[in-house]
Structure formats: C-alpha cells, structure tokens
C-alpha cells in the first residue's frame, strides 16, 4: 500500500505524459487512439489515487488542536528536493500529502476519467478531437499537481497552468467569435484574482521566508509565526494575517467565480460540455475553495476579520447566483449559476469556520455537478440532431446551438432518454438536498454549522439560496423532461438574446406525447453518467453525522459534526416548498414560444435577473471603457507624437541627403570636371605656339633675346 504513497508522483505525471504524447507525436492525427490513450492513463491515475487514499487512510494521525481550535491532520508524506538556490538558503519543491490531498486526488481523477470517457462520445467526429484530449489531460495534470503541491509557489504555478487550459478549452471552438471572447474574458477575469493572490504570496514570503506548507519551524503554519502575523499590524491598520488572507482570497474570488469576478463563468459555457463539467463545475472552480482550505491557519490567525469578509462574499455569491439562475433559459447557464451559488455556499462555510463542511460539500458537489453537466451534454448532443433544430444550423450555427440548449425547446425527454433522465434526476435530487442523497448531508452540515454557531444572517441567506436552488432546478428539470416535446417547432434563440415577441399558443395541448420514440444514447456518454450518479447517491455516506459514520471527518482529523434535527427538518421543508413552486411553475410551458410565468407577473424583476443583474453591462461601461480610453490615448500618442517625430526625423535626413547629393554633384563632380577641362583647354591654347616650323621657333628665340636684352640693359 505504501507503494502508492511512495510513487505519488505518478498521479500527475501520467496525464502529463498523455498530453505530451498526443501533442508532440503523430498520435495527434489519430483521434481514436489518442482518446483511448488519454482515457487509459487517467484511469490508471485514478486507480493509483484510490490506492494512495487507502494507504493514507490506514495511517491517519491527528494533530493536537492548535489555539485556533483547528488543525490539519499530520501529513502522510512530504517529499522535497532542492530547486532554486536563493542566497544562503535553497527553495525547495515537492509533494505534501495529507488526508485532504488524498481525498481530492481521488475525486479529481475519478471525475476526470469519467469526463475523458464522456468526451470520446461527445466529441466524436470533431476534426481536432485529439487536441481536445491533450488539453484535458494537461488540465488534469495541472490540477493534480496543484493538489499535491507542498508550497504556495508550486501551487500557484499549477493554478496558472489550469487557467491556461481553461482558456484553451473554452476557446476550443475558436471559429466562433463568442467562444473566443469568452475564453479571453475567463482568462483576464481570473488573472485579476491571480494578481492579488501573487501579492499575498509575496507578502507572505517576505514575512515567513518560505512558502512551504507545514507546522514545523520555517514553514508557514508554524504556531509562533502565525501568532506573530496575527498580532502585528501593518500600515493599513490591518494585521499581516488579515492582509495576506484577503489577498489570497482574491485569487479565490477570481478562480471560484465569487461575486465581483463571477462574470466569466456563465460565458465559459461557450466551451464544449465536457469542459464545462470538468473545469467549471468539479475541479478548477473548486481550486479556489481548496486554496482557502489549504491555507486555513492563516485565515484563522487574525481572530476572524478576514473570515468575516469571506463569509460575506460567499453568502452574497450564493444568493446572487441562485437568483439569477431563476430567470435563465439556457440549460447550461442555469447550471453555471447554480455552480456559482454552490461555490458561494462552500466559501461561506469556510468563512463561518466550517472547514470540514466546506470540504465535504466540495467533494459531493464535484460529483453531482459533473453529473448534471454531463447529463445536459447528453441532452444537448441529442437535441442538436432534432430535424427542426438541425435545419437552423444552415442559417446560423450559433443560433442552432443556442436553440438546442434552450429548455423551452425541450420537454418530454423522460421517455426519449431514460438513462439520461434517471442519472440526471439523481444529480438533481442531490443538488437540491433531498435525503438520503449526498447533497443533503453536505449542505445540511453547512447549515448546521451556521445555526449552531449562531451566524443567523448567514444561515438565513444560505437557507434562502437553498430554497431558490430547489425552485430553479425543479423548473429546469420539469421543463426538460416532462410534458410534450416542444422541439419540433422550436424557438430560435439568436445571439442578441433578446425576447422579440410573445407568441400566443394556439389550441389545446396534451401533457404527454403520443408514442414517443427512444432517442439513441451513446454508451460512452451513459457509462460516466451512471458512475457519477452512483457517487451522487452514495457519497453522503462519507460523512454521515451519526455514530459510526464520520469516515471523512476521521480521515481528515477533524471533529465530528453532530446531527441537528431542527436544521435538517427546516432544510427539507424549504426544499419541498421550492420543489412545489418549481413544479407548478413549469406547467406553463406548453410550447416553445410561450413566455415564462414569472416574466409575465414581474417583468422588470425578471428582466433584470435575466440580464444577470447588469453586472456585465456595468463592467463594460466602466472598466472596459476605461481600458479602451487608455488604449485610445496611447494610440493617439503613438500616431500623433511618436510617429510624427520619427517621420519628421526621416524627412530631415532626407533633405540633408539631398543637399549632400547636390553638393557632391555640383561642386565635387562638376568642379573637378571643369578644372580638368580648363587644364586641357589651356593646354590646347598653348599648343598653338608649337607649330613645328623652325622659322617660328627661331623667331621666338630672337624675340626672347631682344626682350632679355632690353630688360638687362634698361631695367637693371
């Protein structure tokens, strides 16, 4: 068993090898072989991770509680090697495996394997399918490396690689402008968070001299260091711990799509559905939560100031995400906002001190959210083959895809896609928190934590978000799977997403279709659904709050949660109310062109929720406009000032060259020529005196003598 632990480096390496092989060898043109290679390698990683989990579980050592009342379990393995000499010390890199890492590794690899297999079915026939597999393998490698990282720097490097993969994968269908823009938006928005995180890391490094995880001397959780940063204050009047924690939390706000920086996640649904499932539901967005979980002692070190902010943002995100999801029609966007809302739950749970509850919810959420996304992928894949929607493809490919994803065009899929229906229902019940599904136990633990520690406002907000979750999910579930199939006369959704007109539906309608036929369901897409559905059902057993349960708490070295009957009852009642509202609400969808009942009753509220509370428009009007103005300003400076200066200099040089040329030509060339010509002419002139005749020469001699004589006689 310890073999798995000793060679834990294999777990991120195998997907990395898969990436390298597919990208750099002729394998990149052989789609099927590349896909199966990627699936095989990630499956081996998954098995290795499970083996590692068993190994870690057999040797859990709990740590005595720290003053803050919270402590990680002792790490099962720390492997480090020297990486960078920095003056008198050396910065090391390596792995740090403690129980939460082992659990995350198992979750990520299992989910990733399921999604790899699903992608084989979903992306079949795509010309760049092999490239897709190389990217998701790289992403898996990065996520696993991040989980195993033993210091914040390696963590950050893997975090950035994940951001890159997210960009590449969202923009995988790059010929579509919306996808390219969405990829950029995701990258830049998360980058803002990453800058804050980097600042936090730099700050921490200057104080601690190291970024390594651990409780020993010289590592960042050392008790006296934590106490030091918790009490000293910096120039802003906050303690070091608060500042570092809030800066690191900035990274979480970006990556985990918390309130101000959540805008990238719904747009990221432009990527193919396996991407949405893997990155934007189960793993990458959970990385932000994992960051806070990993560096939790720092958050606890300042006595609660940073955690208050964390709770505030988490709760705000939870309720905002749930509200916006109420008014969306795209199946994937509803799930995207649901993810934002659930991440808000996890972050809020961390804020109120429920580390265990947040990690548990992270685990269950990964499974059921991936399940829901994959289920929606299966549905979309089938919807795109419906003749009426396929016909739209010829006019406008984007509108065809959006129409295929619109829940108003679905309906009655329960009988057409039974496997998908049942698996999706498992996920749905887990998400809304019905006993005995996994989501109930994890959400209940969060609500109990809030209730028992008397965080009343958080409890109220999270409960309201839970109610809304039940409401919008039931609306979506019913509209998709029940009733008559509306896709034969679909509503065409154009890129501008504006509702053009309300259509009066003619005639009576039946609740059930006459003789629905089964649509074909690809086994490569169904098998992962079944696997994830089994987890969605049973994962609650990881941490049942009864005596004899608590497997996960024991594994992670935390105290056991107790079961509060009142909280559970209230949660179930709220979920029930949500379901009833959602069910009765969705009866109004008789055909694809009927309008949403909420839109009829409260049009302005609905409109603002449908337009996502205008956050995107606000950003576009403010920050984007500022960036544009700066760019325009620089371009003005560049063209008017720099370019003109350079042109002027060039012009001046040209004129100078002309002057030089004319001097050269006239003075130097023609002058010399004239001199030469003059010399020749004077020679010619003198030559006339040489006649060759003796008489002339004699005469000249005589004349010369006479002149000399005169000069001699009369002048001297």
């Amino acid at each position, binding site marked *: 068993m310890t073999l798995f632990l000793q060679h834990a480096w294999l777990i991120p390496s195998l997907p990395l090898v898969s990436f390298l092989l597919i990208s750099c060898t002729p394998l990149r043109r052989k789609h099927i072989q590349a896909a199966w290679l990627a699936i095989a390698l990630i499956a081996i990683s998954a098995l290795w991770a499970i083996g590692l989990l068993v190994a870690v579980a057999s040797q859990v050592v709990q740590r005595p509680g720290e003053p803050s009342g919270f402590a990680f379990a002792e790490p099962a393995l720390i492997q480090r090697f020297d990486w960078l000499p920095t003056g008198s010390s050396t910065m090391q890199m390596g792995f740090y495996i403690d129980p939460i890492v082992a659990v995350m590794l198992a979750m990520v690899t299992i989910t990733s394997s399921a999604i790899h297999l699903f992608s084989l079915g979903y992306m079949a026939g795509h010309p760049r399918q092999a490239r897709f597999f190389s990217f998701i393998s790289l992403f898996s490698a990065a996520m696993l490396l991040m989980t195993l990282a033993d210091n914040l720097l390696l963590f950050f490097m893997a975090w950035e690689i994940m951001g890159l993969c997210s960009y590449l994968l969202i923009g995988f269908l790059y010929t579509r402008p919306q996808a390219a823009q969405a990829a950029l938006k995701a990258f830049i928005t998360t980058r803002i968070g990453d800058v804050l995180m980097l600042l936090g890391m730099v700050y921490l490094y200057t104080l601690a001299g190291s970024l390594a995880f651990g409780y020993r001397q010289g590592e960042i959780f050392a008790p006296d260091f934590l106490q030091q940063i918790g009490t000293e204050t910096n120039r802003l009047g906050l303690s070091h711990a608060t500042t570092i924690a809030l800066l690191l939390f900035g990274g979480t706000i970006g990556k985990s799509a918390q309130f101000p920086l959540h805008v990238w996640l719904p747009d990221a649904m432009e990527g193919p559905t396996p991407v949405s499932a893997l990155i934007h539901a189960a793993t990458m967005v959970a990385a932000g939560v994992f960051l806070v979980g990993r560096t939790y002692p720092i958050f606890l070190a300042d006595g609660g100031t940073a955690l208050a902010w964390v709770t505030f943002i988490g709760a705000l995100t939870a309720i905002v995400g749930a509200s916006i999801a109420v008014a969306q029609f795209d199946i994937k966007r509803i799930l995207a906002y649901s993810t934002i809302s659930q991440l808000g739950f996890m972050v809020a749970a961390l804020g109120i001190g429920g580390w265990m509850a947040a990690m548990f919810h992270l685990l269950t959420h990964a499974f059921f959210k991936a399940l829901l996304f994959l289920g929606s992928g299966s549905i979309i894949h089938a919807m795109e083959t419906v003749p009426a929607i396929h016909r739209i493809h010829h006019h406008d490919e984007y509108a065809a895809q959006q129409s295929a994803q619109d829940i108003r065009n679905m309906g009655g899929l329960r009988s057409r896609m039974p496997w998908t229906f049942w698996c999706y229902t498992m996920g749905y019940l887990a998400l809304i928190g019905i006993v005995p599904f996994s989501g109930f136990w994890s959400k209940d633990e969060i609500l109990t934590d809030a209730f028992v520690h008397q965080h009343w406002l958080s409890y109220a907000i999270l409960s309201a978000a839970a109610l809304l979750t039940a409401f919008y999910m039931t609306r979506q579930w019913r509209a998709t799977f029940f009733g008559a199939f509306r896709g034969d006369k679909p509503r065409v959704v154009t890129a501008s997403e504006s509702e053009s007109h309300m259509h009066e539906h003619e005639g009576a309608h039946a609740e059930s279709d006459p003789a629905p036929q089964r649509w074909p369901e690809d086994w490569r897409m169904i098998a992962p659904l079944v696997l994830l559905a089994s987890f969605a059902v049973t994962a609650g057993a990881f941490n049942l709050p009864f005596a004899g349960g608590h497997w996960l708490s024991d594994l992670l070295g935390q105290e056991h949660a107790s079961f509060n009957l009142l909280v559970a009852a209230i949660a179930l009642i709220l979920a029930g109310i949500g379901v009833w509202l959602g069910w009765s609400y969705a009866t109004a969808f008789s055909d694809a062109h009927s309008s949403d009942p909420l839109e009829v009753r409260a049009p302005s509220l609905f409109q603002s929720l449908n337009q996502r509370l205008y956050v995107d428009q606000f950003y576009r009007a403010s920050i984007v406009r500022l960036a544009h103005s700066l760019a325009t300003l620089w371009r003005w400076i560049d063209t008017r000032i720099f370019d003109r200066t350079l042109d002027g200099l060039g012009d001046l040089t040209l004129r100078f060259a002309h002057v030089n040329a004319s001097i050269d030509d006239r003075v130097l060339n023609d002058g010399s020529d004239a001199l030469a010509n003059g010399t020749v002419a004077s020679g010619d002139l003198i*030559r006339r005196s*040489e*006649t*060759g*005749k*003796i*008489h002339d020469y*004699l005469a000249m001699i005589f004349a010369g003598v006479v002149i000399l004589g005169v000069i001699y006689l009369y002048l001297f």
Partner: protein
Amino acid sequence: MTQAVSLEYVLIVAAALFCIGLFGALARRNLISMLMGIELMLNAVNINLVAFWRYLEPSYVTGQVFVLFIIAVAAAEAAVGLAMVIAVYRSRTTLQADEVDSLKG
C-alpha cells in the same frame, strides 16, 4: 689707325650684317639658305668682337682667340648642320623648312 674709321661704323656694319643674316634665317625656306644666314650671323658677331678688340683693348689677345674659337665652332656647326640637312632630305625628300613640321602640336 683710329682716324681711319670710328668704332660705331664698324659696329653698324656688324649689326647690319647680323640683321641680314637673321632675315635670311627667318625668311628663307630652303634649309641650306637658312644655314647661310646663320653663318652670316656668326660672322657678324666675329666682326663685332674684332672691332671691340681692335679699338678698345688691342694688347689683350683674348679677343682674337675668341674669334678663332667662334670660327672653328662655326665650321663644325656648319658641318653638323649640313649633315642634318642631308639626313632630313633622305627621310623627307624635301628641303623646305615649312614642310618639316612633324613636331607640330
């Protein structure tokens, strides 16, 4: 001896002779005639020298010696000149000084 002729008249004769000789050298086209003119000029100089000797320094014998030199040189020069005339005639078959102008230009 001084009352016979004064010095000026002898010098005038010498000068006249010289001018005739110069005219002959300059105006005659025949080469041999030019040589005759040159001989005349030389002899005019001889007369001049003798006159100066006789009238101014009769006891000083240098005047006569100088004249003897000039006569000898004139004879040699006439010989060389005639040899050149013969050479010119052999190559150009002409004795007109105007036509021997290959050094023209």
